[in-house]
């Protein structure tokens, strides 16, 4: 996918997340994009590694900075203690739908699905869910297939997550994956 096409998909994701009440900070964009690419296989081409708050892509982080520099998104400061959030810049949606309307239309269903399932989640919930998805679909993880094995693996790499929370996250990811398969 070309850069401007990725920009269109990310802008559409941001728009859908915002409509679902998401805070739309960088972590929200990172985890939603991980689901979009990792689960729905929208070919954005970002390399995700298990890092801060779960799966994280340095390429995507740079891309978000680039979108800001290209006047397509804006970072909005929020009162302490909250982190900044993103919003679409004026005219950005008009420009991107003009340039990449077909790209946006093709990804619409997948983006809507991700926003429906993640739009109301906070940072710590997103960390648990995205790490559970990583444990489930990423061959590098070696976490095993059962709910318990994956939950224990999550606690091993993220000791601040309780085992019960990890189990809940794995079960929720399994149900999101089932819904995604039905959608396909």
């Amino acid at each position, binding site marked *: *996918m*070309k*850069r*401007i*096409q990725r*920009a269109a*998909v990310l802008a559409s994701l941001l728009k859908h997340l915002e409509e679902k009440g998401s805070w739309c900070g960088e*972590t929200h964009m990172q985890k939603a994009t991980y689901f979009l690419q*990792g*689960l*729905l*296989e*929208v*070919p*954005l081409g970002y*390399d995700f*590694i298990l*890092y*801060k*708050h779960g799966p994280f892509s*340095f390429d995507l*982080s*740079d891309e978000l*900075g*680039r979108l*800001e*520099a*290209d*006047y397509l998104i804006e970072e909005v*400061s*929020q009162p*302490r*203690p*909250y*982190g*900044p959030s993103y919003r679409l810049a004026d005219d950005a949606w008009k420009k991107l739908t003009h*340039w*990449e309307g077909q*790209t946006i239309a*093709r*990804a619409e*269903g*997948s983006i809507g699905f991700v926003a429906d399932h993640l739009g109301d989640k*906070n*940072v*710590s919930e997103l*960390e648990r869910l995205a790490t559970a998805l990583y444990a*489930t*679909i990423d*061959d*590098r993880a070696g976490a095993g*297939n059962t709910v318990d094995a994956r939950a224990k693996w999550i606690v091993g*790499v*993220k*000791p*601040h997550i309780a085992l019960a929370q990890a189990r809940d996250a794995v079960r929720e990811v399994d149900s999101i*994956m089932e819904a*995604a398969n039905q*959608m*396909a």
Partner: protein
Amino acid sequence: MAKHEHEFRDPIHVFIRVSSDERRVIDSRAFQRLRHIHQLALTYLVYPGATHRRFEHSLGVMELAGRVFDVVTHPANIVEAVRQVLPDSGSLAYWRKVLRIAALMHDIGHLPFSHAAEADLLPKGWNHERLTEKLIDDVELSGLFGKLTPPVKKDDVKKLAVGRKHLKKITFSAWDELLSEIITGDVFGVDRMDYLLRDAYHCGVAYGRFDHYRLVDCLRILPKHYAGTDELALGIDEGGLHSAEALLLARYFMFTQVYLHPVRRIYDIHLQDFLKDWLTKGKFETTAAGHLKFTDNEVTAAIRAAAGKRKGKGVDAARRIVTREHFKLCYSRHPEDVKVQPEAANIICSAIAKKYGKDKVRFAPYDKSGKVSAFPMLSSNGDVVNGLEASEVLTQFPPTILEHVFVAPEIHDAVVKWLKKEKNKLIANSTSNKNASNKKKPAKKKGA
């Protein structure tokens, strides 16, 4: 009586003291090679003082890493949430040693002329971090680590030297991650601290200076409570916020004024053009022995030899470097153009290539935005907040995106004149590609 401590004079840190074990690592072939790798490639053609090497930078990184370790593990600086990951006091000495050795090793995988020569000159999937990993695994260094007192595990060195970002298949404990952040961290990594201070000193610019004594003294390991998680990260005490701002401003100014200086960038491109022609199959070797045999010295000699010839491999690029007949800047990314079309620079470059020929134009994009990441800050009331949000300065930081288009000197004036007339039309008339597909079926569980 044999000395157990040795010292280097250093223009940034004055004295850098090393143990006998550390000196054995410094004496290794992989480390001594860094005496012949310029820190800033051909930047000395723009800033004549910038002839310093990765050798002294790596010593500086080791010095700062040791200082940071001592500060963040000092009992008075440990907050409750950190105790669960902190090793016992007996193990701390081992980890301090690993950290300092990893700091020495962090750049040993650099190719001749550092970053300038890396793009496209290694086989797919390779970069200098992977070469560093390979050299640490190699018997010469891993054997040496095993003979130190106490022996040091090569995997520990590798994790801290290369960092999680580049070691995707290896699991890091919370402690491993914190220590690697001391060297490679995006915000407070000592690699960055040393190169900013050292590069500014040698270039003769003041942009890279900041109060690193105060900053190091204020570093703390803190939980990221502001993000709703207990995950630990390298952060600062509130008293160090202004020093942190100065560090991040220094990075911004050094990138825009030195590292991304247009003339420096075109020399990087001419160097890459030369190496693509001169190297066997246009690539550097990735074996340990192949890597160790190449330094800036061999490449510089080859450039000088090629520049004296009338024809042959790399002659044109070599001549441009040696006689300073480099390509000239004809267009730089401009906000007004970007607002109309984010791909403006790329479109302009393609149009020039179409009209004047591909060989006459070079494009130098830089899109690692350099956005400042959030970091934890310990407030005077004991709360851990987002340091980024606590700073009026850092929240206003612009992303660093630069794009330069260069053309051969003989067509420069004509291109500038042509662009004056055609640029706005080129940008306004551009459309983007609509052919890529972006919908596939959902992922499956492993083994499903």
